[in-house]
């Protein structure tokens, strides 16, 4: 499964919405319920599903899904 598809699955689970289709340009303004509190759930879920950890500094740089994808991709490199 493509990385974006795997991440989309996490988004659907976290936001309880089967119609979510993320793109690299997706931001919090595109998804109902993506606020600062649900963002914590999202990050914890991504870290768990992908077996990675984000640093606090990295989290502050995420402006959209594309930034998240790049960060996840870099951490999954063998």
């Amino acid at each position, binding site marked *: 499964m493509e990385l974006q598809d795997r991440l989309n699955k996490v988004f659907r689970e*976290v936001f309880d919405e089967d119609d979510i289709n993320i793109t690299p340009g997706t931001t919090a303004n595109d998804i*109902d319920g993506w606020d600062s509190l649900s963002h*914590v759930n999202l990050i914890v879920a991504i*870290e768990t599903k992908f077996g990675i950890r984000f640093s606090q500094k990295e989290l502050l740089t995420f402006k959209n899904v594309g930034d998240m994808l790049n960060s996840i991709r870099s951490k999954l490199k063998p």
Partner: protein
Amino acid sequence: MTCIIVHEQYNIGHICTRLQCERGLGAKTAFRWISAHQERVDYSFADLDRESSKFSTILRSLGFARGDILFTFLPKIPEQFFCFLGALKLQAICGTLFSSFGDEAIVDRLGDAGAKGLVTKKSLLKKIARVRGQLPQLKYIIVVDIEEHISDDVLSYPALMRKASSDFTAPLTAPDTPSVLHYTSGSTGKPKGVLHVHRSVLHQSRTAREVLQLTGSDIFWCTADQGWVTGTAYGIIGPWSLGITQVHYGGGYDAKLWLDLLEREAVTVWYSAPTALRMLMREDAKLYMGYKLGSLRHIFSVGEPLNPEVISWARATLGKSIYDTWFQTETGGIMISNRPGLEIRPGSMGKPVNGIEAAIIADNGEVLGSGRQGALCLKSGWPSMFISYLNNDTIYNQKFHHEYYHTGDTAVRDSDGYYWFKGRSDDIINTAGHLISPFEIESALLEVEEVAEAGVIGAPDALLFEKVVAFVCLHKQYDWSKELEVKIRLYVSNKVSSMATPQEIAIVDSIPKNKSGKIMRRVLRARYLGQDAGDISTMED
């Protein structure tokens, strides 16, 4: 001074729309809608009157009448305002729900209220569909972003509005007619429906004028969601009853976008919350360079105590003080506040506003003098006072003793008459201005298969004021894991709300209870804070 009651018409929907048109403000901008994607649309008071009247006629054609209950379950969008005011014009009762509410929170509120209708968005329909079977009285669901009706009872708002007549005038409405319904959490039991009446407009209007100091030339921005009493009292009723232009922004917190908005829209009075202000304080100081906020006259705050360092930061960075205000869902409007013209005592709640008599009262009923801590109470009878907890007269009556309403907060009054918040007298958690019931979260946690027992407390937090901390005891056959943490987080978020999601989860061997089985949250709180738990003689072995 603007007279808002004409010919004894107290109808909030009428006062906020038609009356403003009759005052000659029909062409004036009632609100500039700014979407999350920065699209901007202006709605005049004539637009607000027409759209809300159309919604009134829709509700009437669906069989809604005086006293029927309609809820909105929406993020901040223009339809929120049209539906809210349209329902009130018809003398229906309008309840507002946070769009982050989960299944259980929806059922508790709609079920208790016996709601007849709900206005929502397509993306939230899935939640409603899951619980619809538990809501036999819910006859209609109106969806704002579908073009055609889905069925006889799941209807398209645009389709209804296309055919609706705007020929509607609110019936003469007496001041004691029920109007707005907000649910508030209790430390035990289900959330309570706080019911207000149309008379509340008197106090909301007065405080918008005297505390927020709104005048006809102001551009007002209240950041509160309409699920919150601030969002209806001061995001709708107070300012529009005075014909004030508002800005409503559909996006979430974003420091740069917020500053852009304040500057570009020339906002003159801004009402926000301490958590948002603390988030702004944490931003890089360079962000504030180059912004010209000369239009901004006043900043106000509400929701939880505003710490003095935020006021110092605002003075240094924004060149403005922040006036902290205090009220509750039950009070319907600002009761105690700092305000222009009154010296700010940073960290204090300020002084009671005109017409409000506050007192500090001891457990034995003695009214205490300055410097002594006790229950913060208000002399009953102010215009925006709630008239009941829906279906719960017993709890309502327990809130009143000797003509005083007991707020559940504890406070001290100093010798100059300023009030200082000290805490809650119950276990309610105030996280980012939202009151959360530990009971609701504990109930949700117990529904997770792996969880045997749970206790939830609020713990001090530098950003949120209080954070939700859950103590969880697992069934013996299960082990704690990161996957289980995600499962618990998402379960609570989707069942109750994202606001109720524990910020910390501590795995423990048992939950302290007294001999009658009640969770001893003060013991959990003391353990978490490393403090002495005090008397634990009633704790079960």
